[in-house]
């Protein structure tokens, strides 16, 4: 009888213990940090700021996790295996692209840029809360530099938005969940103004390359601010955004570029070689690049995207078009349509200008110790078959496929994403100056410098193949052509086409490849042909701007308006 009293006592005690410890479910997530903890610690605050860089575009082959790129949307290339993120752009199915694979150029960019903007705006608003870092040779947190970086990155985010969508809503303060955030779109000009204002402050906060240690290489500098400014002003002056053709806008763009060229922000210069422009750790030409170290073979894009299966690639789907190939001039700087250029359609790859060899892999090109084999007949070519894992156009892209990449014995190499390089500034200047003033000597100088570095022969007149005394229109064509070649596959062409409004003549035309037949004597017969329907692209003028993601329009209950032509 005594027993149960003891048990009763135990049970009651247990119940008592259980019911009294009220915080049993209180689980302070000890490993996670609160917002105040972040900004109370200079080290954490610095990490918070650095996290903003993850929201900037940082690779060329970004669609659907390195399966497509904007070069394939433009006339530069086609997607050999008809990747959905590319074909949706090719067919004008932009909403499908927007809602398709999780990495795309419309909805993802919209979300990603605003996510970055939120971080940058929050960091700016909490800048004063971060206590001074303890003294050290390399300070943990530099409020001045961080402010400059945040403003620069925010400007860059808004620019990526205006480049694609035109005017977008401006989110200029830290919003919380409960704030009314259904903002209307600001006009393109308003957003541009906002970007320039951020850049004006950023310029005063950042240093030059020389001010930073090598450990900070890759952070934006005054030079990067100015390079972005030239690009922003150039886009603002372009036909898409400057329907009245206001010359003052062009002049502002030219002046901005001029300041960089004057060396005000550092001694930038074209590097001696063009062929390794993506593959060097540092360069006098780099104004800002994405630092990512050596890219392994199976990494971002090579094995699965740009390499021929003949060299161990899985999907050789990055296939430059004949349209793009035909734009490369001859070594003497003359276009292949020029009867005096010396172009032989049956030896199409002889004597082309050097950048052709730097950008394009073509049939019979020596490559990795052998010759590239892309003939369709007789069967058995190593780098071409009708299977769609091989090239559709009989070209591969050298810029995305450095020669060291091969399955057996392959090694890694640098494959930088370039935000700004000096050649672009020169081209920006030339274009703006030609529109503002006309094809004066300074315009010629920039093109000549670029073509000289490329390795085009100077010719008797030292104009490197350029026609002397061009009209403004001729010069415009020459500059656009130079830009297409110099900046090929570097994320420019597609957006240039949109801002120049030249889609109808570049995208809406037949996409071509070349058929190669190997003769019994070992020589080749080349026959350009129009690619199958799969690779053809459609163009309508509404495509000059992307549609605002439809889900955002739905959510806004009519506050967000759609771009013209898009439903």
């Amino acid at each position: 009888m005594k027993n149960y009293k003891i048990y009763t006592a135990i049970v009651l005690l247990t119940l008592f213990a259980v019911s009294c410890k009220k915080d049993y479910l209180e689980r302070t997530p000890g490993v996670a940090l609160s917002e105040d903890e972040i900004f109370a610690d200079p080290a954490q605050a610095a990490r918070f700021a650095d996290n903003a860089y993850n929201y900037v575009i940082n690779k060329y082959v970004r669609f659907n996790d390195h399966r497509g790129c904007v070069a394939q949307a433009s006339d530069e290339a086609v997607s050999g295996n008809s990747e959905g993120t590319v074909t949706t752009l090719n067919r004008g199915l932009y909403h499908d692209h927007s809602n398709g694979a999780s990495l795309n150029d419309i909805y993802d960019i919209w979300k990603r840029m605003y996510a970055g903007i939120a971080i940058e705006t929050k960091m700016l608003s909490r800048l004063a809360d971060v206590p001074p870092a303890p003294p050290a040779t390399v300070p943990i947190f530099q409020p001045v530099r961080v402010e400059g970086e945040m403003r620069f990155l925010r400007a860059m985010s808004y620019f990526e938005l205006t480049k694609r969508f035109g005017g977008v809503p401006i989110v200029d303060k830290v919003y919380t969940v409960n704030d009314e955030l259904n903002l209307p779109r600001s006009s393109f000009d308003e957003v541009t103004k906002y970007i320039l204002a951020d850049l004006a402050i950023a310029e005063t906060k950042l240093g030059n390359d020389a001010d930073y240690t090598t450990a900070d290489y890759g952070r934006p500098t005054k030079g990067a601010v100015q390079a972005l400014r030239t690009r922003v002003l150039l886009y603002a002056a372009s036909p898409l955004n400057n329907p009245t053709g206001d010359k003052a806008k062009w002049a502002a763009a030219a002046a901005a570029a001029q300041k960089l060229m004057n060396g005000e922000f550092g001694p930038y210069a074209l590097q001696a070689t063009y062929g390794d422009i993506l593959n060097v750790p540092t360069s006098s030409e780099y104004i800002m690049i994405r630092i990512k170290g050596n890219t392994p073979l199976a990494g971002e894009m090579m094995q699965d995207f740009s390499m021929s299966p003949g060299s161990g690639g899985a999907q050789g789907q990055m296939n430059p078009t004949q349209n793009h190939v035909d734009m490369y001039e001859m070594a003497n700087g003359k276009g292949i349509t020029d009867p005096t250029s010396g172009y032989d359609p049956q030896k199409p790859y002889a004597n082309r200008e050097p950048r052709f060899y730097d950008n394009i892999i073509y049939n019979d090109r020596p490559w990795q110790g052998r010759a590239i084999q892309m003939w369709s007949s007789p069967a058995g070519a190593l780098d071409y078959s009708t299977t769609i894992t091989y090239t559709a156009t009989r070209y591969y892209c050298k810029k995305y496929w450095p020669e060291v990449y091969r399955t057996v014995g392959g090694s890694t190499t640098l494959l930088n994403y370039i935000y700004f390089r000096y050649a672009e500034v020169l081209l920006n200047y030339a274009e703006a100056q030609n529109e503002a003033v006309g094809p004066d000597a300074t315009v010629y100088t920039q093109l000549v410098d670029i073509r000289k570095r490329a390795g085009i022969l100077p010719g008797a007149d030292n104009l490197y193949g350029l026609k002397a005394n061009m009209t403004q229109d001729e010069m415009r064509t020459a500059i656009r052509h130079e830009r297409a070649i110099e900046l090929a596959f570097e994320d420019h062409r597609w957006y240039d086409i949109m801002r120049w409004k030249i889609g109808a003549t570049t995208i809406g035309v037949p996409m071509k490849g070349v058929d190669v037949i190997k003769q019994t004597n070992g020589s080749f017969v080349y026959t350009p042909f129009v690619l199958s329907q799969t690779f053809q692209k459609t163009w309508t003028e509404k495509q000059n701007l992307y549609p605002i993601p439809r889900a955002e329009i739905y959510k806004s209950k009519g506050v967000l308006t759609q771009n013209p032509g898009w439903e």
Partner: protein
Amino acid sequence: MKLLKSKYKYIACLLFLWACVLNVYSQTPDEQLTVTGRVVDQDRKPVAGVAISIQEDKTNKSVTTDADGRFTLAASTSDVIVFKYVGYLMVLKPAAEVSKGDIVLTKALIDAADNDNVYIPFGVRKKREVTATISTITTDNLPQIPSSSLTNVFTGRLPGLAIYPSGSQQPGYDVSSFLIRGRSSYNSNQEPLVLVDGIERDFRSMDLGEIESVSVLKDAATLAWYGMYSANGVIYVKTKRGSATSTSVTFDAQAGLQAPLQIAAPLDAYNYASLYNEASINSGGTAVYSPAALQAYQDGSDPIKYPNNNFVRDFTKRVAPTQRYVASVTGGNAFIKYYTLLSAYQQGGFYKGGHNDTYDANTDFNRYNLRTNIDLHVNKNLDVALDIGGRITNLTFPNAGTATFLSTVYSMPANAFPVINPNGSYGGTSIFTQNNPQAMLEARGASTDLVRNMMATLSARQKMDGILKGLTAEVFYAYDIAGLYRSGFSQQYATSELKADGTYTTYGTPVKVDYQANAFSGNIRKSEFWAGFDYNRTFGKHDIKFSTRVSRANYASFGSLDVRREGWSNRLSYNYMQRYFLDLTASYAGSENFAPGSRYGFFPAASAGWIISDEDFMKSATSFLDFLKIRGSYGLVGNDAIGTARRFAYNDFFTRSATGYTFGTGYTGVSGSGQLALANPFLTWEKAYKTSVGFDAKMFKQALSISADYFYEDRKDLTTASLLPSLLGQSLIYVNEGEASYKGFETGINFNKKIGGVNLNVFGNFTYNTSKILAINEGAGLPDYQKQLGHPISSVISPAATANTGAGYVSMMLISDGIFQSQAQIDASARQILSKDVKPGDIKYVDQNGDGVINDLDRVRTDFNFVPKAYFGFGASVSYANFDANFLFQGTSGRSITIQQLVNAGNTNNGFLNQFSADRWTPDNPGAPYPRLLLTDRGNNTATSDFWIRSGDYIRLKNVEIGYSLSPSFIKKLKIRQLRFYASGLNLLTFDKLGDLPIDPELPESGYNSSYPYMKIYSFGVNLKF
């Protein structure tokens, strides 16, 4: 490892100890005594003719009471005396206690006899007393099937419980899902809580022999006990316990053969090449295979240059073996009862080909289950129970990966390469560098996953009549651990391709076989504690049962904070005259998922029952009706598993693990501190308001019983998207603004009759349900035909991603309108821009918004659903003399499946060709079921549309068992109580609406793409009882 090992040692020691205890009890010198007494009924009238025996007595000595109810019996102190009388409840009494007073026998009411126990959470009721909706099946009625998943056995057996295979059927996985009644949350598939002896445990991998009964708790009346964790229903598994009335030793041995229900039948080389040529030409290319090559494929003249493989034939077995052995010992006496089971199960894989001396890469599954349940009657006030279960599973699989191996076997073109080259090397090509199935089995290594589980439960009940008559206290503690250990052999191979010039090109680098790095994972520790009081007392015609428990659970795995739960559950049952019943259940439960201050919820439920047949007016009214109970319940149950929201989602916080960013030419990365998705401090649990009304009836001398229920559930506070613009730059954890409901009915029927020498039992059950979305956040501008609001919670499962659709649940799709037969038709229709080129043979779509273009605005929200509207089962068991037989049909209706991922299966390497490609549209075959073949620009014909939807309705002969028992007179000489031989089968016959389509309606992708096939099993067994 060490920890686990020591645990097992510990278990072994414990078992040994218990065995000693057992011995000690039996060896205590017993006092002999003469037991005398009187047996009376409830009205204190003596009962004559009561059979009285001693438990576990080998001599089968038995006496009966005389006319005065008196008896005399010689026994010893350790004996338990058993009193049995037909129509009355059995009474057990320790011999020493018998003489202290009259033995009272209680008349058994309908549904309240000895075997009418229904187990409810921390309690037991007679079926008669139950006011909630509970369906129970005891395992005596189930067939013995050598399947690695118990769910196969329960499919179609219980009303309101849908069981469907939902993933890999690979040995050892056999993934299936449960659904109780219907779906009322669009955020999850509403998997119910599965409790084994009151604790959340895996029940699929138990051995059938361990289980006494399985109950499905469906309405608020029982579920409210579990407060926030049981809104999706509970499957309550009760394990077998020892018997105080009989000792028995049983042994079961079964051997069986499994054969795939459906498996891919790949194209031969000739057909493959011909179709490839057609696809290539359709895509604007030229024929890839020359007539000479086609001829060579047909005549097999050069099997090296023109191979014609059938990988399915060469690398899979038509049948694979399986076997199961179960031994159990059960028994007990007045002080101890025990049940011990040991079982071994083996399921062989169906891969064949390849040989390696070091390992066998064929998949193979072994499972060993151990269970010992011990009940100790320590003294007349204290009972202690100790249950220990152990499980070891051993799964071997090829290192190439089950999915990779199967997709290679199913979908590698027949002409890809010779398996073995003339020089003895493995065949391969530049696009199939590591796809040689033989090499995968013999030169790619194999792994073994060893999973060890230990489950222990200790409970003690103390009677406290001294404080309050009828009061008992109980403490209950469970501790489970599990761990996975992977080991095996690694190896790599190279493949070679014979070139035209006689040389070989080699792909890959061979690596000799070696031990692979061992790895631990899945280490889980789970403990649960319940304590409280029960009060059971009868006052005249009033009967009161009250239970209260506090509980805490802790679930710990490596690398994260342990998950905790806490609750306080109460239940009050009252009945008057065993005719009017009322139950109140209420719990107060908390979840760590919610903000302090709004962490605990109150979940009440009420239910009532009325045995209307006991009323005088009914007794006179109907002669055929023996029993009729009307019952109903209403209550609130919560669900704290609110979808994919992160843990502690009420709290805003930052992580240090944001992706790093690299600066500097030294390429040193810096990590970021990123803000996680924004918190919602008002986040709360889903609230399920459940209504259930029904009846139980018995008719015709209790031969026929029927139960039926109408149910309705309204689930509020479902989490739904926040509709915040992306401008915020942050995603927000969901908001509780959704609502959905389901309703329907379920019924079960059972007919039991002995006709002459034939024992006949016929049974059936049927459940029907529909759901409706009542509130969901959707974009305001979304066209009406794309909204989910007002639709059922529905989707079809698209397990594999295609070019244009992701994997997962799909309910928005284009509506198809057949196949274009001519260019004129195309010109007259809306412009389809999903592919660049639309030609005759392509799928035609309906222009939903009439804008002349087919794009994403033409997608329509559909009601195609993978959850059936109705599911049912029916069957019978018959026994006559020494023979017995039973069968079960099971089926669903109102269910949809998609075959898109089967017909469009493939990749660029095999040209998207498969066995279904033969039925493609061609100008000569305009009535073909599938569109024309294409290598590229396939967007139009692979878009998600109703073109690919098929009915998932089926009726399946789920199992049949035929048994023969040797006659008792014969086996008595062998000292055997029972010897039964039986043959059984699983998934034997299927009737569906798929026509010639060779797929399984239950799991369409099984046997295709990269899925292990769903198996039918034939087995033979022998059952021995001593």
